[in-house]
């Protein structure tokens, strides 16, 4: 149960849950699309911490490979997402998600 002396898997999972909740709070709280992107990164990293803790718990390296793939997807997503934000800002002069309501019914 103890991953390192005195620290159990529960400690890591609670830490991961707190980081994930912080990311969700940031996405709900802020309206700037760039800050929301950063909170998304925070949530992905919370999941990564939980995966690495489980990898240590079971002594398996597979979970760490999963973390690699999450990093790959995060990097690709950030590249495309920031390009979309650049284009939005060029056309609409804002990154405020409340202003970006052209698709609203």
């Amino acid at each position: 149960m103890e991953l390192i002396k005195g620290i159990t898997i529960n400690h890591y999972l609670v830490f991961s849950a707190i980081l994930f909740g912080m990311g969700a709070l940031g996405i709900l709280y802020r309206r700037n699309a760039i800050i929301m992107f950063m909170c998304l990164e925070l949530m992905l990293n919370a999941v990564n911490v939980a995966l690495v803790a489980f990898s240590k718990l079971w002594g398996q390296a597979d979970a760490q490979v999963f973390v690699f793939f999450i990093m790959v997807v995060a990097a690709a997503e950030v590249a495309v997402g920031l390009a979309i934000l650049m284009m939005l800002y060029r056309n609409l002069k804002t990154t405020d998600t409340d202003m970006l309501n052209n698709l609203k019914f």
Partner: protein
Amino acid sequence: MLSEIAFWILSAIAMVGGLITIFSRNPVYSVLSLIVTFFAIAGHYFLLNAQLLAMVHIMVYAGAIMVLFLYVIMMLNLNRLDDHKKTFSAKLTAVIAGGVLMLVLIAVVQRTDELAGMQAVPSTNAMGLTKNLGKVLYNEFLVPFEMASVLFIAAMVGAVYLSKKEEAVVKK
């Protein structure tokens, strides 16, 4: 004992960095505090014997992704946001919803009986090293690894296409 203290300090740094990221008015401060958070998470990876992952994390996140964020913020000249217009009730709703989500996740972790009975498999310290991870990555996960490179090419093409001049994109 030493690693226990390191765990608490790194966790505290990560959480404070995350809070500054969310509540800072200046997006540049948000980016910088998120970099601090990522360094703390890399420290967690070191504690968990995932050395290669820690180095890759620092290189990819602090070195590439956050620099990309900084570039975009500086190019758009967004160093001061008019985020004040959000109503108090909207902020309160966001804080309540985020807090409830956090509490539910923590409660789920705390009340899972299976976790309490688990025995950690004694793993060798070499598990997170490049040699071991490379063997796993190039044997079991070879096809997903190649797919990841296809995904990267698609993302690169998409980013270049999207960030071209406006007329070139709109013109059919």
